[in-house]
């Protein structure tokens, strides 16, 4: 009787573990456990973004938010970067002039992280040249 109780408990735990780990196990089985986003540098060969690559990776959303506020509400259009260079604060005509492929640049990470910024409900993606 006692043995049977232990076995049942063990079985429940095993089934629970399999269920909980099933997404991870599935990814191992399918073989895409390491399919993290792989961003390519801009096709135009531009080396320097408005700020450093590492800073942009963590803070681009705050930067775009600040740009949006100051452009629309304060009428500022020019951004002075920390290296002193000046840029036109515009998502479509500044950011996308280097990062020309929105699907590969913006969407790749956003899809991976399941975040859905609503920039493109209104802002217009410049059409691809070969399309």
């Amino acid at each position, binding site marked *: 009787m006692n043995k049977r109780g232990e076995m049942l408990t063990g079985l429940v735990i095993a089934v629970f573990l399999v269920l909980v780990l099933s997404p991870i196990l599935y990814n191992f089985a399918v073989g895409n456990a390491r399919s993290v986003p792989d961003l390519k540098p801009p096709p135009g060969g531009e080396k320097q973004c408005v700020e450093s690559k590492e800073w942009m990776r963590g803070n681009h959303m705050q930067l775009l938010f*600040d740009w*949006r506020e*100051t452009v*629309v*509400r*304060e*009428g*500022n*259009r*020019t*951004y*002075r*970067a920390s290296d002193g260079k*000046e840029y036109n*604060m515009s998502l*479509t*005509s500044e950011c996308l002039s280097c990062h020309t492929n929105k699907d590969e640049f913006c969407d790749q990470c956003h899809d991976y992280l399941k975040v859905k910024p*609503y920039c493109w*409900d*209104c*802002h*217009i993606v*410049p*059409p691809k040249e070969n399309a």
Partner: protein
Amino acid sequence: MSMDRRKFLKVAGVGALGLAGLPASRLLAADDPRFKPPAEGLQGKRWAMVIDLTKEAHDADAISVCHKIHNVPQLTNPRHEIKWLWNTGFKHAFPGLASKHMAVQYKGEHSALVLCNHCENPPCVRVCPTKATFRRADGIVLMDFHRCIGCRFCMAACPFGARSFNWVDPRTASNLDEPGEVMLTFPTRMKGVVEKCNFCAERLARGLIPACVENSSDGRMLFGDLEDPHSDVSRIVKSKYTIRRKQHLGTEPSVFYIV
């Protein structure tokens, strides 16, 4: 580390004082050294317009250019219509001022040219719960489409019907659903957002006057700074008799009409 009650309260009090200073420093951060106005932009204290209704109305170009460059959707259902600049009858634009004895140019259904009045005392700004509509230092009543939640209080508050609501996705409009048709230099709006004339704020930032004035027939429209005594607009307003729409309401419109 040991701390008696008296010492703890002292430290906590000083800390709370520091926190109270935070909002002030936030306010100062509005002068962020990273951001600068455009060097080529037009500067004004109160942008205003003069529309000459005694001149014959050929406003189709001005209207179509305005709607083209701002990606204003042309929707077939009249209940979904979006308007930034349009012609209406004099009797509708100036209720109570029309009469059957007036000159013929005031009698047609398209005799007056109307747009957002960019009021000095704008009721739309007062009612907006998110501050999506606000008045800039240069007098332009501007919309921050990012903040609009589509409550339409502003549409109820505006006495001039200058605002339109996007009942349907504007990108489904015939003039915006083709990639070649849409202007890439200005965003569209989305369903559920209010929109109106912006006095071409994006053109002023590039040193250009509003597109409607640029494309109006000779002398029909003028644009300038009402606070600048040498501007065309203040010269006309000071030397000629002009009227404004529903002046008795006290919103102080910035669009003047010569009649």
